[in-house]
């Protein structure tokens, strides 16, 4: 029934991108850099962003007609996985979501205007959530948007609006918006809230494509979140294992205690499964209907894997785990925040039940 969705195809390009991204992120995002960016206004290094743009990463899933590389969604996965693994934040995901929204639902003029810019490094974001807490992207009720990532660094905001009773997508330049930064649990990220200004038809994407565009955003967001969380889960386990191999208590390296060893193994087994589901999701994400199944499975599993791994990492680091200096909290907070965006694991399971049963 779902067996064929477990097949994984990895192109040479994806393998290459993966190597490149892992090297790049390891190089540009050592933990000291991650920590120094926690208090940075934008939470990322503009110079590194420029390098990513130069590598062509922003154009990966944008067609060549719009100066992108014309690759596939699947090719974004190894890049975001590497970012997750090295806790590297940038507006990569925000910008990608905006670009995919425009690609799926923009008018010819909007597409022609914005995609080349986004492919070359102009920062953009999406504004989809409201204080109602609904994860259903069609449920647009008011003017207030929340959890708008990287807004302050963006030139363009793709936002949902209620227009003449219909849910539509609008393209709003940054300078038409007054935003307030929100305090969120993941301190590596930057989130904002703003009031959607009055829009006219010229701000809007064509009405007929709104549903498609929203579905596209949700699919891509969940796929990339799975990639980020899956990468982070492996890193979190490596970080924990390193500690378990060196820390001594009662005259013994603590990793020899089964009370710590076995749950760490369980976390590892979970994380390996998450990675496999991630690459299966990358392989099948473009399939009508089934793509959603593969992607939600990967995201639910990855969220669970990182949550468990990081929760145990805090615990197994003992007193140090309770400090801000221990990286376990960075991983745990990342999982907590991800769960709040686009639905948590229980939400994905409920959707999967509808799709599968």
């Amino acid at each position: 029934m779902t067996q064929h969705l477990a097949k994984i195809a990895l192109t040479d390009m994806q393998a290459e991108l993966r190597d490149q991204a892992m090297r790049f992120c390891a190089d540009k995002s050592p933990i000291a850099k991650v920590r120094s960016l926690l208090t940075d206004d934008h939470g990322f290094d503009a110079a590194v962003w420029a390098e990513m743009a130069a590598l062509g990463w922003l154009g990966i899933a944008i067609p060549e007609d719009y100066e992108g590389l014309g690759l596939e969604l699947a090719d974004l996965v190894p890049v975001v996985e590497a970012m997750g693994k090295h806790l590297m934040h940038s507006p990569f995901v925000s910008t990608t979501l905006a670009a995919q929204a425009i690609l799926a639902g923009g008018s010819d003029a909007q597409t022609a205007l914005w995609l080349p810019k986004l492919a070359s490094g102009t920062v953009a974001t999406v504004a989809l959530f409201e204080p109602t807490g609904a994860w259903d992207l069609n449920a647009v009720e008011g003017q207030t948007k929340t959890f708008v990532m990287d807004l302050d660094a963006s030139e363009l905001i793709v936002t949902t609006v209620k227009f003449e009773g219909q849910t539509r997508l609008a393209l709003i330049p940054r300078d038409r918006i007054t935003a307030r930064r929100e305090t969120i649990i993941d301190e590596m990220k930057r989130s904002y809230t703003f009031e959607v200004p009055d829009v006219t038809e010229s701000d809007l994407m064509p009405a007929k494509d709104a549903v498609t565009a929203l579905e596209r955003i949700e699919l891509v967001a969940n796929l990339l979140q799975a990639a980020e969380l899956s990468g982070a889960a492996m890193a979190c386990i490596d970080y924990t294992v390193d500690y378990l191999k060196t820390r001594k208590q009662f005259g013994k390296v603590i990793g020899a205690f089964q009370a710590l060893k076995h749950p760490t193994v369980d976390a590892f087994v979970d994380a390996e499964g998450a990675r496999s589901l991630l690459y299966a999701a990358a392989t099948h994400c473009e399939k009508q209907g089934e793509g959603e199944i593969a992607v939600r499975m990967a995201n639910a599993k990855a969220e669970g894997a990182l949550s468990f791994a990081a929760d145990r990492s805090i615990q197994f680091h003992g007193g140090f785990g309770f400090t801000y200096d221990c990286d376990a909290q960075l991983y745990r907070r990342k999982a907590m925040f991800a769960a709040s965006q686009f639905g948590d694991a229980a939400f994905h399971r409920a959707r999967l039940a509808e799709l599968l049963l």
Partner: protein
Amino acid sequence: MISVEEFAKQADAWFAEHTPREVPFMMPLTFMEVGTDEQFDFLRDWQNKVHAAGFLGAHWPEAYGGGGLTQAHQDVATRAMRKNGAPIMLNAIGIGWAGPLILDTGSEDEKRRYLPGILSADDIWCQGFSEPDNGSDLGNAQLKAVKDGDEYVLNGSKIWTTQGNYAKYMILLARTNMDAPNKYAGLSFFLSPMRIPGVETTKIRKLTGEFGFTQTFFTDARISADCLMGEEGEGWKVAMRTLEYERGARKGEAGGYTISQTNPLEVVDLAKRAIRNGKPALEDPVMRDRLVTQMIEAQAMMANRERAKIAPLVSENPFALPVLSKLQFTEYARVTGELALELEGAQSGYYVGERASREDGYWQRSYLNAFSATIGGGTSQIQRNIIGERVLGLPKTK
């Protein structure tokens, strides 16, 4: 002497009148959560006021700042505090650890010198048992105390010193003999001053982002040999005795409470208000199932406390319930925190300080803070060893 009943009435009336309401900051629920000067100053004033009114140390002798009444008097005063939802007592180590120890085994001079300041909160005490390299293994403490004439010279470091930056004194476990027959026999116990040359504290930032602990560094710090409590080499014995006051196995605490009893069912209130995916969280059957699971667990903990009082129902193993309660409660709190995040749905992404968050990020912070209890005071893993070995009689894990 005033009757216990009358004293209880007075206490109740006093706390009803004086308990502060509407404080402009998050009230710490435990003495370990005091992270800002504002919180510290407020709670120090409060303890001072409670003591001045006669409701702290009511059973300690008047000569040492107490009220000269009985334990029963203090107990009703403590109950009045709880009943009125009064803030916690700040000087936890003084009230629960150092004070009872000094009252029990100290010299007359030590009692007069130390006890009044403990009750008034003028003299804050901290605890120096854990070390960075020996978190779970107290008996392996390595901070050195070398005798030099009338003084001991201290070198080393202590960690998880709650209120270390505010403290005037520390109860200190230090190694006076490197050649003792076993690691315990080399330890001695000191009432050590903190504001002397060679003692420095660094604040430790918690995973919540807040402060509350310090690390204390000793570099050729000299303290008077008088600071020794008990004999050299008896440090482990004195430290274990001290822990027994805190665990209630010996009487002597100055009263009041230093950890506000949280209601294990408060998550139900959250559930009733929480909005998940745009709908009341309680409309989601999966969340209901998980919530009821936690409610049953909470009820089991409360029923355990009740059963512990009934001898025929604990006759197989009278110590089982007290010994397992720490593991059960702290893990319950952690799991409940995780559930709360799910109940909050999208709102769980906010954090303390965000006006759009529910109750200023109370549950996010609460989940993260829960680790202080699953780690501190013996990790959950060590608790399972203790229960397995002492209650079930399983062989020791080496």
